[in-house]
């Protein structure tokens, strides 16, 4: 097991390294010049050069990368003379656009995205799985048909439409104050305020994701129900309730762990659309604005890396978890 873990962890590290290198290379070959972006009308060649130096883009890409890696471990200094300042390790860089060390930006954005992801995740799992089970158990009945409609709507309705609809409805019924919406409230100081802040984004995301899980659960439960071991359970005299809970669901939901883990990891990287609609200052909004508006390389790099890291690490967790759930794939 330890050996396996070490091997997987080093593979994970390798992937993350490759991703970070790719982002650097992609940026180095973009057809535009970030050094021109910040000075606007004031851009003269000397100012552009000063900017390039300030952004650390006046050296070859491999040196930029080296500085980045070094900064992760020992921190990084910016500026010269009296304007000198430091981003402490782990320094992911400094956003000259937001005037903050990227680590600080991430530290403030991540709790938002995590709150969004975890709530939506729980909600869609509950909703998706229970609807899926209901549909499977009432196969062909109205409950099943209703769930089919739900799945169709959920899958075909993109969050940028459902989110706006939910938001406008919530506004119409005065359920949220549009101007206060999305303001970060800590779950530790004000759990209710926190939850209320996230409830509509949770619903938006949950609707989008739950559909897949409903469909998946339904077909898995139906398939598992016809397994021989379910017949065995019945032959043992177990009640239908126990069979469903203990025997059918255990097997039917095991594969869901994989997709759920990856979906969750994907969300941790930031739910761009939902965060934007509900004005949530999370990673998704941070990264999309950095890409589309600011060309803020250190932010883009870090959010990309983070997203990749979430996915690879979650992959590992899912694999370990899956081995725990399904003894057949357990590693010797």
């Amino acid at each position, binding site marked *: 097991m330890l050996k396996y873990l070490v091997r997987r962890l080093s593979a994970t590290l390798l992937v993350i390294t490759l991703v970070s290198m790719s982002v650097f290379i992609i940026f180095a070959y973009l057809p535009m010049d970030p050094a021109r972006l910040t000075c606007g009308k004031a851009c003269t060649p000397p100012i552009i050069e000063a900017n390039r130096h300030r952004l650390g883009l006046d050296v070859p890409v491999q040196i930029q990368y080296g500085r980045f890696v070094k900064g992760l471990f020992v921190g990084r200094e910016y500026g010269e003379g009296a304007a000198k300042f430091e981003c402490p390790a782990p320094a992911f860089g400094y956003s000259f656009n937001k005037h903050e060390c990227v680590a600080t930006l991430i530290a403030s954005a991540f709790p938002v995205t995590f709150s969004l992801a975890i709530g939506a995740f729980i909600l869609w799992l509950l909703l998706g799985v229970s609807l899926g089970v209901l549909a499977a158990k009432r196969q062909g009945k109205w409950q099943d048909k209703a769930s089919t409609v739900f799945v169709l709507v959920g899958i075909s309705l993109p969050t940028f439409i459902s989110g706006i609809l939910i938001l406008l409805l919530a506004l119409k019924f005065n359920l949220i104050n549009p101007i206060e919406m999305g303001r970060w409230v800590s779950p530790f100081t004000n759990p209710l305020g926190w939850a209320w802040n996230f409830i509509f984004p949770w619903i938006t995301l949950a609707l989008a994701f739950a559909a897949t899980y409903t469909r998946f659960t339904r077909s898995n439960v139906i398939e598992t129900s016809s397994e021989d*071991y379910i017949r065995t359970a019945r032959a*043992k*005299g177990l009640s239908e309730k126990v069979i469903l809970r203990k025997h059918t669901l255990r097997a039917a939901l095991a594969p869901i762990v994989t997709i759920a883990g990856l979906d969750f990891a994907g969300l941790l990287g930031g739910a761009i659309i939902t965060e934007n609609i509900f004005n949530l200052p999370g990673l998704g909004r941070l990264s999309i604005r950095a890409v589309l508006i600011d060309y803020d390389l250190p932010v883009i790099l870090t959010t990309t890396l983070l997203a990749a890291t979430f996915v690879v690490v979650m992959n590992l967790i899912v694999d370990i978890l899956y081995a725990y759930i*399904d003894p057949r794939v357990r590693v010797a």
Partner: protein
Amino acid sequence: MTSPFLEVKNLTVSFPTEDGLVRASNDISFTVARGETLAVVGESGSGKSVTSLAVMGLHNRRSAQISGEAILHLESGDVDTISAPEDVVRKLRGKSMAMIFQDPMSALHPYYTVGDQISEAWGLYNEGSKKDGIKRAIEMLELVGIPEAAKRVNEFPHQFSGGMRQRVMIGMALVNNPSLLIADEPTTALDVTVQSQILQLLRDMQKEFNMAVILITHDLGVVAEVADRVCVMYAGKIVEQAQIDDIYYVPDHPYTIGLLNSIPRVDQLDGRRLLAIPGQPPSLISLPTGCAFRARCSLSHLVPNNLCATKVPDLDEKLTGHFSRCHLTEAQLSKARTAPGDAL
């Protein structure tokens, strides 16, 4: 013969499908007593499993149409598992009647240890902690001949060999000391060498628990080792029913004869070819008129007036305690018995 424990009367199971009604088992009647082993023999699709699942109440009552009776003579009184409420039948399962299945890999839950699965069955009808259940599971594993039972009780089904898994299944089925055990092709998925061990185990267990056993198999060879009586089924009907020796020595239906001829026998290694029965069993949706076996029967031309094609033969007691569903006379049949293959 002791009084029967299970009495099946006119049991008919059909499944409505888009193509029509599938008559999977048709007007089945038999009995089995404690200490007795009844073998139900037939090709796949002949209705043997359908019949036993109906007895166990394991058909989905919404998708299966079931009529007839399957009466368990319990100490607390008779219960008809066909008409009794679902809940009543469920509480008989595992306790009064138990069942083991063909493929012990797929029949055991892959995610739970064998100990968990046995102890779960035990806990259903016994007061006791999980620990007690595991203790009981170890006892059962020892009883069914699994070495190092105390260690293996914590293992998962995939860590066992096929034969060992079937032993686990048997142990699990017997954990509540049932009066009836239905073994549905218990050896089919196993290596030949393991098969007889399992059959031996079944026989031992039957003695140990004084159970009524229904052994479902397509293999008449298996039957010889363990059964007291035999029902031969074809196309959803019983075509012959008799004591084990009668079946072997005086098979009374051309289908049974055909089956026997297709078994390799050590006492007849005289160069005769093994004879397979030609053709396929009929569709259960549109059964032919007359005798269902007629199309594959090499003797039907002996029956006058094309009777085989027009009239369904009755299950007649042609010899004492020996029932057969055939228009042929006893004389015609005895001729066929002695000269199989080239007879007619």
